[in-house]
């Protein structure tokens, strides 16, 4: 899976979770960039991403990822 493809699929997940079709995520997107992205939505987002990519984050990763770039790294590593 290419990095671009992951971003594309993530974009759809983000739009769906946050109910906002204008969202475009990139490497450096953080919770500060998306209004509704608080600690509760973070969990919903994580679960939606897990479903989309058919993988699981562990809780350590859930609490330590710093931006969408980190999230993509984890997804790509899992796919190897």
């Amino acid at each position, binding site marked *: 899976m290419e990095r671009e493809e992951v971003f594309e699929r993530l974009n759809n997940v983000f739009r769906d979770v946050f109910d906002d079709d204008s969202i475009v995520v990139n490497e450096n997107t953080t919770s500060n960039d998306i209004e509704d992205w608080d600690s509760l939505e973070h969990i919903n987002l994580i679960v939606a991403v897990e479903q989309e990519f058919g993988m699981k984050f562990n809780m350590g990763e859930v*609490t330590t990822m710093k931006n969408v770039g980190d999230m993509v790294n984890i997804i790509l590593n899992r796919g190897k």
Partner: protein
Amino acid sequence: MSLTSLTFLFFGLMVLLIYFVVPKKIQWVVLLVSSVIFLFYDNLNVGTVIQALVVLVPTYFLGMAIYKNKDDAKKSKRYLILGILIILGQLIYLKYTNLFLVTGNHILNLFKVDYQFGLVHRNSLVGISYYSLIMISYLTDIYRGLVEPQKNIFKCALFMSYFPILTSGPFIRYDAIENELYGKHKFDYKRMCRGLVRILWGVFKILVISQRLGMFVDTVYGNLAKFDGFYTIIAILFFTLQLYTNFSGSIDVIMGISEIIGIKLPENFTLPFFSRSITELWRNWHITLGCWLKDYIFYPLLKSDFMQNLGKKCKEKFGKKTGKKIPMYLSMFIMWVLIGAWHEGAYTFIIGSGILQFIYIFLEETLAPVAEKVNKKLGIDTEKFSYKLYQMLRTYLLFSIAMIFFRATSVTNAIHIMKNAFVWNPWVLFDRTSLYKAGLDMYDFRILIYSLIIMFVVQLLARRGDIREKLFKQNIVFRWVCLYSLIFIILIFGCYGPGYDPAAFIYRQF
């Protein structure tokens, strides 16, 4: 060992002295020995030694086992669950047996069965509520791949029992403290000064403010038949402050000692009484407990298959927005019940620092859109000082009402106190004598008011940056005047228990 006792003062001084004299390689051993002394100081017997070992030994070995089997998710999870069960099992056995017995008795009463379980007294070690949770987080962090286990069991024992945090926290995380805890520390004069100022500040909060507030609260709550109406209202409001000054003062003493040693601990309080909502208040009150629960209970619960399935079903039934919130509130409710129970295994605590807090937060969240509409219609500017002040006072009042349960001896007692508050007797506030009959005389009230003003002003200043740093940058005269004033205020106006009243010698004779 109370943090403001002379024994602790002596103990602390000895620890620091020995810590900086011994070779740096064995500094951590000094901390371990002191921690063991502190742990068993009031309570040394075979039972308590076993209690400590029941947490330490399985945690140590299971931590290693989880790490060794990190590639085998099933096996490592099994070890983790075993560890958590052992630690929690002991905690529940020691601290929550009576809660179950009391519940059993209520049920028996309900079915009119003529039998009651006798309550038990179990002797538990100081700090067990803290180190049990700390060790659970240690095991979980190894499982989550965040830390590597400690190979030396004695070092593991030090992490479990680091003495400053045993009485009032804060909760520590292995990855955050590991390097400093076992590291080598040079004596640093500036660090010592900073630590000492923090310790003095904590002692000021405890001895001058908290103990004094306690005298009023104890008198009123101890004699509800005599003191009602405004006495009760003041006692309710005072108790919250008493709790805060005592708790955060203890944390100041703890942080100060640890700072002198060279081990930075996480902050546990940041100005809770300037919060505009209960949600915000809990972000500033016992912060490390909140973080612990969020990371080790709330998130995993929310992410669990059960909650996710519930969320899916709710979304189908109630729509996306509402459906999403139901598992969230359910997880929140479970978390708050646990927060209440963690404080003490009694219904008063589960209600006061658990369920009521949940209800407040639930109402704040669900009523926020309504409040916004009302404010818009009435043209109220919510960013004006007056509105913020109203929100702060409302938060303080709501929190104080919940804290009635925290202080009360039983739920019936708490309801009695609430009823008492509704007696109409405003004259006790103004007739110049009545108010001074409830444990505090006029002088005490004055000391209390001035001390509270000093505390809040200093805290507001501290909001704008490191206040101790600013103090040390002042010229030497100002610096020493401040420090000596604080020391003399503590010595003269501190409450050291009945029969010892230094202030009486100094100014009451005039």
